[in-house]
């Protein structure tokens, strides 16, 4: 694995990400925008399932899915570019894996909410009590994912292998 990381570090893309004055910061900006739309949309849906803004029909919150998808694409593409710049920094840090576990878990819960509870809400049925707990769990996982992203800067053990 270390050989692969060394190889990535020497690719033109990786060198460009590290050596160009603007590249890293421009990509960081897009990553922050992507995360803000992804997590913002996810938090809005989580809060609604938790009972906030109950006057708005739950199933209609599906309109935020495209916003979240745009955010996810922005975050993933920019995240891959950031990863290309310093692959060893992220891939040797367990917090990086935890970030993905949290965001993946939050995304999975939002998907389950859409699958299980949006149709119930559309039929006018009352949601089970556990729906609120699932919403709260999703909200906390979004927060944990963001926290792990911020902690990456402070928990890495190395920047480069080569």
């Amino acid at each position, binding site marked *: 694995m270390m050989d692969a990381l060394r190889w990535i570090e020497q690719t033109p893309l990786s060198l460009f990400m590290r050596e160009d004055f603007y590249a890293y*910061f421009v990509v*960081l*900006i897009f990553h*922050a*925008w992507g*995360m*803000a*739309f992804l*997590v*913002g*949309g*996810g*938090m*809005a849906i989580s*809060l*609604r399932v938790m009972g*906030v*803004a*109950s*006057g*708005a*029909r739950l199933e*209609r*919150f599906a*309109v*935020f899915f*495209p*916003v979240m998808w745009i955010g996810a694409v922005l975050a993933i593409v920019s995240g891959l570019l950031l990863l290309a710049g310093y692959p060893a920094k992220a891939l040797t840090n367990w917090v990086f894996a935890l970030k993905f576990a949290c965001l993946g878990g939050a995304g999975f819960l939002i998907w389950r909410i859409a699958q299980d509870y949006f149709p119930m809400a559309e039929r006018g049925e009352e949601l089970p009590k556990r729906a609120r707990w699932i919403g709260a769990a999703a909200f906390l996982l*979004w*927060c944990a994912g*963001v*926290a792990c*992203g*911020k*902690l990456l*800067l*402070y928990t890495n053990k190395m920047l480069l292998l080569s």
Partner: protein
Amino acid sequence: MIPHDTPPFLLAIGQWGIDSGIYALMNTRWGWPIAEIVHFLGLCLLMASVGMFDLRMMGLVKGLSMKALHRLVPFGVAGFSMCAATGFLFVVSSPLEYIYNQAWQLKMVLMAIAGINMLAFYLAVSKRVHALGPDDKAPLAARIIAVVSLGSWLGVITCGRVITAFRPFME
């Protein structure tokens, strides 16, 4: 490095940060990282509430009652409070790095624009917007306010990232 012509008020802010213990707290192992986490979580809450409200008001998403969606706004206020409190800790801990930083200056201007824009919303269009049905189009003034609001907050996020690129007095 502190320049010789540093205004006394900046020195006073820095000294107050030291005397109050904020500087020491922020320079502990986890002081700055925890403040950064709270800061970005606050921005996420702002996007979850004000940002989503703006998208609805702009007409990019439809099918949600604006009045009901407005109930998310207190979370935006909480998010803004988290950002303001942690932002205060950053500035007090390192005033020269922020106050002379052009990205920080622009961030403050954008926040002021967002604040004035919010006032314009509540004074000029909020009643009309709250009366709209889930699929109704917001009036033009409301859509302009939404564009300015979302643009300002995305600009604030951008400046927040760029602040770290410019460290005027970092040795």
